């Protein structure tokens, strides 16, 4: 479990995070949602120690990561996998070499064992057979999958995904969500996903944190989304008139069913 306590973060005059206190649970996807510029990426990078907060704490189970020295922080990071918004695949390495990189760096496995694990990971994300291609030679959706495979290669306890759906068509993006969800459940990982994709919210939103201007505006799960009368949530989720109408219809239907 990851807990944050009263996180504040400013970049100079720009006060980006304003007192974030929340929890991210084991074994299920935790979503951070909110409009662009709400501070989602900053919060995510703060959770993994790429930024330090102006004040506040981040606990991994009982460890406050901002009290660790660099070496201890690296120990924790070996248990972290991260999927970046732009994938951050190393473009001079092939797909297979990308996935192998963490093993090359941190394990003493033989070349054969490494290749077996690479194949396993590629299979896990349904991408067998692209081992020798370069990231620039495969599609955006495939790159995401490779990114996930690389994040999973050392069997992390924590998985962070920054906008895993950005730039993907709705179908691919649902497949990616399902993949992340499945991996999370199967391996009991603490997964934090940062998104503004509606389908993700309604599909895999087991623990949702809505951010607005650096505040926590709402917390809940997908079953509570439709019923909530939180204004920020409504503004965010039902931004388009089309969705607004769908929601009204759904609520009407439910009220009728209930009698």
């Amino acid at each position: 479990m990851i807990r944050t306590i009263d996180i504040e973060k400013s970049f100079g005059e720009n006060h980006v995070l304003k007192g974030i206190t929340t929890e991210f649970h084991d074994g299920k996807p935790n979503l951070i949602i909110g409009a662009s510029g709400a501070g989602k990426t900053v919060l995510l990078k703060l959770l993994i120690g790429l930024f330090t907060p102006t004040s506040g704490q981040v606990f991994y189970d009982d460890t406050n990561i901002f009290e660790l020295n660099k070496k201890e922080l690296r120990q924790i990071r070996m248990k972290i996998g991260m999927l970046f918004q732009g994938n951050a695949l190393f473009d001079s390495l092939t797909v297979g070499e990308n996935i192998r990189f963490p093993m090359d760096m941190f394990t003493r496995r033989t070349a054969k064992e490494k290749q077996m694990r690479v194949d396993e990971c590629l299979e896990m994300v349904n991408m067998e057979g692209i081992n020798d291609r370069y990231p620039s030679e495969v599609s955006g959706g495939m790159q995401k999958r490779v990114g996930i495979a690389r994040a999973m290669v050392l069997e992390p306890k924590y998985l962070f995904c920054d906008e895993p759906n950005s730039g993907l068509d709705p179908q691919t993006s649902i497949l990616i969500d399902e993949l992340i969800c499945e991996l999370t459940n199967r391996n009991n990982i603490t997964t934090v996903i940062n998104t503004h994709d509606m389908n993700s919210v309604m599909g895999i939103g087991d623990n949702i944190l809505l951010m607005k201007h650096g505040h926590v505006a709402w917390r809940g799960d997908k079953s509570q989304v439709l019923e909530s009368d939180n204004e920020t949530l409504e503004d965010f989720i039902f931004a388009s008139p089309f969705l607004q109408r769908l929601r009204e219809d759904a609520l009407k239907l439910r009220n009728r069913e209930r009698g």
Partner: protein
Amino acid sequence: MLINTFLYHFGQYVLLLKSAVAKPERFSMYYKETIRQMDAIGVGSVFIVILISMFIGMVTAVQFADQLGDSFVPTYYIGYIVRDITIIEMAPTITCLVLAGKVGSNLAAEIGGMRQKEHIDAMEIMGVNTAAYLIMPKLVAAVFVIPLLVAISAFVSIIGGYVATVLPGSLSHTEYVLGLRSYFVPRYVFMMFVKASVFAFLLTSVSCYLGYYVKGGSIELGEASTNAVVVSNVLILLFDFIIALLLT
């Protein structure tokens, strides 16, 4: 204001170098990267270094021959002067100025690109000490290979001097070689290697530093790459002077 900026960068530079000196996570990865850099920096620059050194030697010889003119200085001094100017000054300094343009800009752009594409963040998250992994192999490679390039440069320049004076007939083979063998001071060769190592360290570390902390987009990346060349060049000349003061 200027002094603030200078101190800020100097401090950050020293801290970066400090974290770059660390025990490798996996020695074989660092070794592989070092070899790759040696190939890129060394083998990749041999041709340009030879070309430039040839001309340096030729120009030095021809101009010195002209200055001697009908003076009482014996003509074999041409070989002597070419040798010493090359070893003490031309080979280390010009080679490293050129390498700052070629290697320095390249390193800054490579590391800066990795920063912008979040490759560095990705490695950090894996638990890699990126300062060490991205900088140490480059430093080791450069400090090892660039002095070798400088030695090649000195050698080729001396041949250049020969080509420009002996072949057209303005000096005999015997005279040039006599010059080369006169008044040899071994300490100058030592000085050449000191300069080469120091310049190599400067141009590599400064370029890596500027790339490592690049922000923004392609304009900033271009600026970082240009700054790497400009700052390296200024530092090379400054330290050229300092070393000259210390070692003469």
